């Protein structure tokens, strides 16, 4: 009885390979959504920090959590084997944007840990990147 939840946890935790183009596309959309979420969380946290509406440790942890989320999504997606040439194109169009977003989030995290001001300025590139990823998600979702 007690082992049932453990088995379930293992089953749902597995990231399966993408055997078809549509499965790969679906994973690409999930990844884009995850990075959009992390990017907009960082934008919000940066805005709060600059307006003095949050504490430095809280902002720093929020940004670091978002970074973990974005990087986990990026690593999981980049480790999936694209099943065909069309998926190669999809991968090529998505990964650079995601990588760029992860780099900006890392810059914001570094600045937040130093309690630097102007986090919004450092985070600003995330706005168009998130919009781009959102458009990708809408197009393929």
């Amino acid at each position, binding site marked *: 009885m007690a082992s049932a939840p453990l088995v379930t946890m293992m089953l749902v935790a597995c990231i399966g390979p993408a055997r078809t183009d549509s499965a790969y596309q679906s994973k690409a959309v999930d990844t884009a959504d995850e990075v959009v979420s992390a990017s907009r969380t960082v934008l*919000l946290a940066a805005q709060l920090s600059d307006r003095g509406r949050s*504490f430095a440790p809280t902002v720093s942890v929020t940004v670091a959590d978002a970074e973990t989320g974005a990087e986990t999504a990026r690593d999981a997606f980049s480790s999936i084997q694209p099943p065909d040439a069309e998926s190669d194109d999809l991968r090529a169009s998505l990964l650079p944007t995601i990588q760029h977003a992860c780099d900006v989030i890392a810059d914001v995290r570094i600045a937040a840990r130093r309690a630097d001001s102007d986090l919004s300025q450092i985070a600003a590139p995330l706005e168009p990147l998130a919009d781009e990823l959102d458009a990708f998600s809408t197009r393929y979702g």
Partner: protein
Amino acid sequence: MLEVFLGILTAFGGFVDIGDLVANSETGARFGMRLAWVVVVGVIGIVVFAEMAGRVATMSKRPVFDVVRERLGARWAFVNLGASFFINLLTVAAEIGGLALVIELVTGLNYLLWVPLVGIAVWIVLWKLRFSLMEKVFGLSGLALVVTIFALWRLDPGLHRTVQTVGFGPPASEGWAVSASFAIAPLGAAMTPYEVFFFSSGAVEEHWTPKDLMVNRMNVYLGFPLGGVLSLAIMGAAAVVFEPRGVSLSHLSQVTLPVSLAFGKIGLVLLLYGMFAAIFSAALETALSAGYTMSQFFGWQWGTFVKPREAARFHLVVVGSIVVGVLIALTTIDPILITEYSIVLAAAALPLTYLPILIVANDPMYMKDKVNSRPLNAIAFVFFVLLVIVSVATIPLMIITKAGA
């Protein structure tokens, strides 16, 4: 009168725990208020369940697991104990991990550093503080979470945007399976079994008499629904801030953003204090519930009013559950993930403890003239059917939707 008022406030402040914070925020961010009805259903369910359990404990002088063993027989009751105890341990780990995450938000230091210290703090409070005092201190401090209600009002004056997203069906972008999978979380968070184990054990320990049933009803009928309002506010704040931005919620740090947005640092201080108190209270209750369930099943001496030397096995289980909770939290598995699994599995296991209580609540041998009324029985039976459906559907839904991914 003051005692009744404090009891209601304690039930209010102590209603929310890490499960409610996570489940309601996640659901609000992804579905707006479309699953708010699940919170309402969950609150009605826990009100029915807790009131029956309190009444059964008062009239029969026997707490939940004593009744479970008698009604199900030793073998089935043991299976029930195994499932309930395992889920309770996961909840202890989730609460300890949640407390460490709150401290991380204040200090900026990694939560893993705080996990052992939190475990020690929970144990010291259980060991040193009078039960009634710790219940009131942490329950009343949890009322600081009311800041979320005001934050929602400030972010969405008149609640127009919040109300716009209220509904029953899933949004166009989500399927029924994912919506159903997400709906289980707020239900499980509202109807956590440990609350009932704790509540009914308290009734036995404090030697409630039929005269106390009115106080029981006031606490349950007023305190829990007020706690439900808090859960809805947490969901609403997430719905207003995160849903339009396409932000999904996967970290406790994100839960603080709506309140910071509304009230800045003062609001954030209140929120973090309230979160710490509410989760600490839940950590104490879950650790005690581990001792209650095990001791009541095996017929050991138990209780917080009994000297530790006279209830050694009870205290050993309580300490053991804290140690295991700390070890689980130290595995580096995300405490939010542990929370998600603990509340969903709690929902799945609910019928195991609900059914025996429902049966005894109708048994005049124990209950005399305090058996369930017909209307209450009708509601209680509908809930039993609902809980069985949830229980059967939970694990397949988690697998099909990859836990709502």
